[in-house]
C-alpha cells in the first residue's frame, strides 16, 4: 500500500521534470545555439516481494541534449568557408563597381584626354585647344588619384575590419576559456555535464568560426581546446593565447595578425584560412594588390610614353617639350634590413604590375616574383644590372646576409601621377625642325623630317633645342656638303632613297632622321632649321595622339586595353566569388538544417510532449487518489 504512494510519487517527480524540460525547450525556442533537451526515464530497481520482483516506479536518470559533434564540426567548417567568401565577395563587388563605373572609372577620363589631344592636332595654334589639353590631362591624373584613393580606402577598411575581428576573436576565446572553467566546476559537482553551459560554449566556438577556420579537441575533463591556422593554440583549457594586430614587416601601413605564445609574438597571417579574416587577407593579397599595381602600371607607362613623345616636340616658346606628367617611381620597403635598396624604372616597355620579394644570403640575391611565382638568383655583383626585375634597375647599399626587401615597381603609379604643365604654350605640338628645299633648286629632290629615334641623344655641340640651321648642298647628284655654319663636312656620298641621319662624325648627327627623296641636281640646297614659331605644326600632336591605341604595355596591349583587361579580370573574379558564395550559402543552409533537424525545438512536438506528460502526470495523480480511496476504505473498516 505504501508502495503505491511511493511509486506514484516517483512518477509525479519524473513527469514534473519532463514537463519542466518541455517548458525549458519551449522557452528557448528562439535561443541561438540552444539544443533541445530530454529527460531520460528509467525504472527504479525492483524490490523482492515473496518470490517476485515488484516494480518500484520510475526515476529521471539524466537530462540529455540532442547533439552531434560531427554535425557541429561540419557546421563550423561551412560557416568559416561561407564567411570567407562572403567577405571576399563583398569587397570584390565594391572594387568591381568602382573600376567599371562609367563616371568614376578610368576609361572616360582617358577618352576625354585623347579627345583633347586630337583637337590640339586639328588646331594647334589655338590657346583654347591647348588649355583643354592641360585641363583634361589634369583631370586624367586626378582620376588616377581618385581611383587610387578609393583603393586606399579599401586597404584602410581591411585594416579596420581585421582589427575589430581580432578584438572579437580575443573576447570569444576568453568566453570559451571561462566556459571551460565553469563546465569543469559544474561537472565535478554533479557528475554530469551542464547542457546549457555546453551550448553556450559551442555557440562561442561557432562565432569564432565566422572569423577564421578553427579546429577543436574535447578533452576528457569536458574542456575544449581551440586551434587556429596550422595548429596554433588559441584556447587551452582555461588559458588563452592573445591575438594581436601588428604591422607588416616590410609595408608598415599594412595590418597583419600575430599570436602571442610562450616564446613571443609570431605573425600568423599566412596560416590563417577561411572566415571573414581569411577572406579579407585573400582579397588584399590577390585582388586589391593586383588592381593597384595594374592601375599604377597604366599610369607609369602612360606618363613615360607621353613625356618621351612630348619631349621630342617643340612648344610655343620654341623649346623642346618638358615633362607633361610626373613619372612615378617604384616603392621599395626595406623593413628592418641593414642595407637599403633602391629601384628605378629604366624601361617601361618591359614593366609589369608584379611585385617582388628580394632576399640576400650574403653572396646572392634571390628575387621572388610574388605575383606570378618564379624565382631568379642574382650574384651580389650583378644586382645593379638592368632588368633583374623586368624594366627596373635595382641598387643596394650596405646589405647584410639575411636582409629582405619588398619591391613594388608600379604601386605608386596611381597615387603619384600628376599633370605638371600650367602654361598652354608649354605643350609641344610641333615637330622640332622644319625642312626646306631652296627655291633655286633645279633637281626634283624633296626633303622631309622623318623622326627622332627613342634613344636620341643630342650631340655635344648641337644645341638642345635644335637651334642650329643645317645646310646640305649637293655638289653633284651623289655627293653633298653639310654645314651648320661653323663646321663643314665635304664630299659626303648620297645614295638615292637612303635615309640620312645626317652622316658622319658629330656635329652632324643631331639624332634625328631626314629623308631626301627624288633626284637632286648639282647646286641644290636643302636646309633643316629649328621650327621656330611653327605654331600651326601638329606633327608631334599627331604622334602623341597615337599613344592611345599604340601597344605600349609590354608591346602587347594599349593603355585602354590594359585597363579593360583589369576590369574584366576583376569582374570575372567577382562573378566567380558570387557563384561560389551562392553554392556555399546552400551548403551552410544545409549544415544549419542538419544541426537544427537534430537539435532545434519544434513547438508542435513540444505541444504533443506537453500533452503526453500532462496525461501521465494526471494518471499518476489519479493513482494516488485511488491509493487514498483504498486507504480510506481500509480505515472505514475500523470506523
Amino acid at each position, binding site marked *: 500500500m505504501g508502495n503505491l504512494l511511493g511509486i506514484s510519487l516517483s512518477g509525479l517527480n519524473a513527469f514534473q521534470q519532463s514537463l519542466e524540460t518541455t517548458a525549458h525547450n519551449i522557452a528557448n*525556442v*528562439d535561443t541561438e545555439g540552444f539544443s533541445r533537451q530530454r529527460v531520460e526515464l528509467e525504472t527504479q530497481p525492483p524490490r523482492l516481494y515473496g518470490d517476485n520482483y515488484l516494480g518500484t516506479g520510475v526515476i529521471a536518470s539524466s537530462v540529455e541534449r540532442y547533439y552531434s559533434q560531427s554535425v557541429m564540426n561540419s557546421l563550423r567548417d561551412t560557416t568559416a568557408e561561407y564567411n570567407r567568401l562572403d567577405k571576399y565577395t563583398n569587397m570584390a*563587388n565594391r572594387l*568591381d563597381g568602382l*573600376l*567599371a*563605373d562609367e563616371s568614376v572609372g578610368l*576609361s572616360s577620363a582617358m*577618352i576625354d584626354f*585623347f*579627345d583633347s589631344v586630337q583637337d590640339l*592636332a*586639328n*588646331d594647334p*595654334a*589655338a590657346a583654347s585647344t591647348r588649355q583643354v589639353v592641360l585641363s583634361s590631362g589634369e583631370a586624367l591624373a586626378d582620376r588616377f588619384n581618385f581611383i587610387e584613393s578609393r583603393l586606399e580606402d579599401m586597404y584602410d577598411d581591411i585594416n579596420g575590419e581585421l582589427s575589430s575581428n581580432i578584438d572579437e576573436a580575443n573576447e570569444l576565446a576568453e568566453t570559451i576559456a571561462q566556459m571551460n572553467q565553469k563546465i569543469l566546476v559544474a561537472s565535478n559537482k554533479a557528475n554530469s555535464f551542464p547542457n546549457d553551459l555546453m551550448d553556450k560554449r559551442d555557440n562561442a566556438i561557432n562565432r569564432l568560426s565566422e572569423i577564421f577556420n578553427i579546429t577543436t579537441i574535447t578533452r576528457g575533463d569536458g574542456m575544449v581546446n581551440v586551434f587556429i591556422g596550422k595548429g596554433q593554440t588559441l584556447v587551452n583549457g582555461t588559458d588563452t593565447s592573445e591575438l594581436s594586430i601588428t604591422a607588416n614587416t616590410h609595408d608598415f601601413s599594412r595590418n597583419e595578425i600575430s599570436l602571442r605564445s610562450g616564446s613571443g609574438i609570431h605573425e600568423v597571417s599566412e596560416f590563417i584560412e577561411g572566415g571573414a579574416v581569411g577572406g579579407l587577407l585573400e582579397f588584399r593579397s590577390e585582388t586589391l594588390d593586383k588592381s593597384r599595381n595594374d592601375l599604377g602600371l597604366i599610369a607609369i607607362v602612360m606618363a613615360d610614353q607621353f613625356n618621351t613623345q612630348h619631349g621630342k616636340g617643340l612648344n610655343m616658346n620654341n623649346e623642346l617639350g618638358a615633362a607633361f606628367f610626373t613619372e612615378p617611381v617604384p616603392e621599395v620597403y626595406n623593413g628592418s634590413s641593414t642595407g637599403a635598396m633602391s629601384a628605378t624604372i629604366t624601361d617601361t616597355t618591359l614593366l609589369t604590375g608584379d611585385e617582388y620579394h628580394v632576399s640576400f644570403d650574403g653572396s646572392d640575391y634571390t628575387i621572388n616574383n610574388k605575383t606570378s611565382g618564379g624565382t631568379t638568383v642574382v650574384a651580389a655583383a650583378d644586382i645593379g644590372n638592368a632588368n633583374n626585375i623586368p624594366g627596373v634597375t635595382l641598387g643596394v647599399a650596405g646589405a647584410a646576409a639575411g636582409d629582405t626587401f619588398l619591391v613594388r615597381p608600379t604601386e605608386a603609379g596611381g597615387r603619384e601621377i600628376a599633370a605638371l604643365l600650367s602654361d598652354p604654350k608649354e605643350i609641344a605640338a*610641333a615637330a622640332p625642325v*622644319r625642312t*626646306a*628645299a631652296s*627655291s*633655286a633648286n*633645279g633637281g626634283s629632290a624633296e626633303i622631309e623630317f622623318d623622326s627622332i629615334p627613342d634613344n636620341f641623344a643630342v650631340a655635344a655641340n648641337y644645341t638642345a633645342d635644335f637651334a642650329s640651321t643645317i645646310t646640305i648642298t649637293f655638289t653633284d647628284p651623289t655627293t653633298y656638303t653639310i654645314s651648320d655654319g661653323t663646321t663643314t663636312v665635304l664630299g659626303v656620298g648620297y645614295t638615292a632613297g637612303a635615309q640620312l641621319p645626317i652622316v658622319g662624325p658629330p656635329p652632324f648627327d643631331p639624332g634625328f632622321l631626314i629623308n631626301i627623296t627624288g633626284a637632286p641636281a648639282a647646286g641644290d640646297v636643302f636646309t633643316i632649321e629649328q*621650327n621656330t614659331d*611653327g*605654331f*600651326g*605644326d*601638329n*606633327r608631334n600632336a*599627331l604622334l602623341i*595622339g597615337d599613344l*592611345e*591605341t599604340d601597344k605600349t604595355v609590354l608591346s602587347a596591349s594599349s593603355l*585602354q586595353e590594359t*585597363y*579593360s583587361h583589369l*576590369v*574584366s*579580370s576583376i*569582374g570575372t*573574379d*567577382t*562573378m566567380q566569388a*558570387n557563384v561560389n558564395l551562392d553554392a556555399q550559402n546552400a551548403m551552410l*543552409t544545409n549544415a*544549419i*538544417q542538419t544541426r*537544427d*533537424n*537534430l*537539435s*532545434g*525545438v*519544434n513547438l*508542435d*512536438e513540444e*505541444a504533443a510532449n*506537453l*500533452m503526453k506528460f500532462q496525461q501521465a502526470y494526471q494518471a499518476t495523480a489519479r493513482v494516488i487518489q485511488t491509493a487514498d480511496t483504498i486507504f480510506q476504505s481500509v480505515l472505514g473498516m475500523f470506523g
Partner: protein
Amino acid sequence: MRISTSEIQRLGVEALINKQSKLSHTQLQLSTGKRILQASDDPAGASKVLELEQSIAVLTRYQESAGTVEDRLALEESTLGGVNNVLTRIKELALQGANGTHSSVSRASISAEVRENLEGLMALANTSDGTDYIFAGYQTTTKPFSETGGVYTYNGDQGRRVVEIGPDREVIGADTGYDIFMDIYNGNGTFTTEAAATNTGAGTISVGTVTDSTSWVEDTYTVTFTETNGNLTYTVTDSGANVIGVADTPFTEGDSISFRGIEFDIDGAPDDTDTFTIDSSSRQSMFETVSNLLTTLDMSTETAADSAKFTSAMGKVLEELNLAMDNVNTITAQVGARMNAVDQEIDTNTAAVLNLEQSLSAVQDLDYAEVISKYNLQLTGLQAAQQSFAKIQGLSLFNYI
C-alpha cells in the same frame, strides 16, 4: 524528417530576402536600361563595352577632325577661287595692254588697275581664318607675304599640316603659300627668252616651245645676229662662248630657230649685233610676275626697236601669267579631290560608328520584353512566398490546446 520551428521561420525569411534581392536587381536593370550593371554581371561583356566605347570615341574624333579639315579646305578653295578671279582680270588687262594701239596714257590706266589687283592678290595670299594665316605653312601666326622695295618675300615655311581623318588615313589640311604663289617657273616653264635692251632692230622673240626635252641642256645661250652685205645670219653660243650648231646660219624674217630640243620664233628684222638671251627657267613668284607686267606696261613703244622689246617682254609675261593660273588651277583641283576623299571617309566612318553602336547596344542594352516578363515572374514568386509564409506561421498545435 524532423524540422525545427526556428528553421521554418528562417527558411521562409531567407526565401523572401533572396527573392527581393533578385527583384531589386531586375528593377535596377529596367530603370537603367542596361543589362550589365557592374562588370561581374558579364565580365567579357563589360570589357567589350569599354573597348567598343573607345572605338566609337576614336571614330567620332576622326569625324570631328574631318569636319574641321573640310571647313579649312573649303576656305582654301574659295580663296583659290578669288586668286583665280584676280589673275583672270590681270590677264585681261595684260591682253588689253599688249595691244600696240594703246597710247601710253591708256596703258597707264591699265597699269593702275593691275596695281590694284596686285594688292588684292597680296591680301588673298595673306588670308587669315580669324586667328591663323592659312598660307603660312607651320608658322600660322607669321604674316606669310611681305613686299619691300618691289621685292616679294615669303616668310612662312614649306610645312603642310596633315590631319588624321580615319584609321591610317591622313589628308593634307593646308597648302602653303610657297606651293601656291612661289613654286612657279618663269618663261614657258623650261626656258626664258629675252631681247637685249641694246637691240636696235625690230626683231621680237616668242616664248618658244620644247620640242625634245631630252636634248635640252640647262645653260644660258646667246643668239647673236650679224649682217654681212645685207645678208642676216645668226650664231648660237652657250655660256662658255662655244658655238652651238652651225655658226652664221642664214636668217630670213619669221624663221624659227631651234637647237638642243627647243624652238622659238624671231619676227621682224633684227639689226646687226642684236642679241637675244635664252636661259633655263627658275622659280618666280606670282607677285613678281605681276610686278614684271607693271614694268612692261611702263615700257616705251615710241620707236620700232622699243616696240619690239615691248612685244617680246609682253609675250613672256602673258605666258608666265598662264603658268601662274595653271598652278592655281592644279592646286584647286587637288583641294577638290581632298574634299571628296574627306567626304568619303566621313561616310565610311559614319557607317562604322553605326555598326559599332549596334554592337554596343547588343552587348549592354536590355531586352525589355525578356526582362519585363522575368520581372513579372519574380514578382509573382515573391507574392507566393509571402502568402505561404504567413499561412505556415499561423499553424500551431498550441492553437488547439
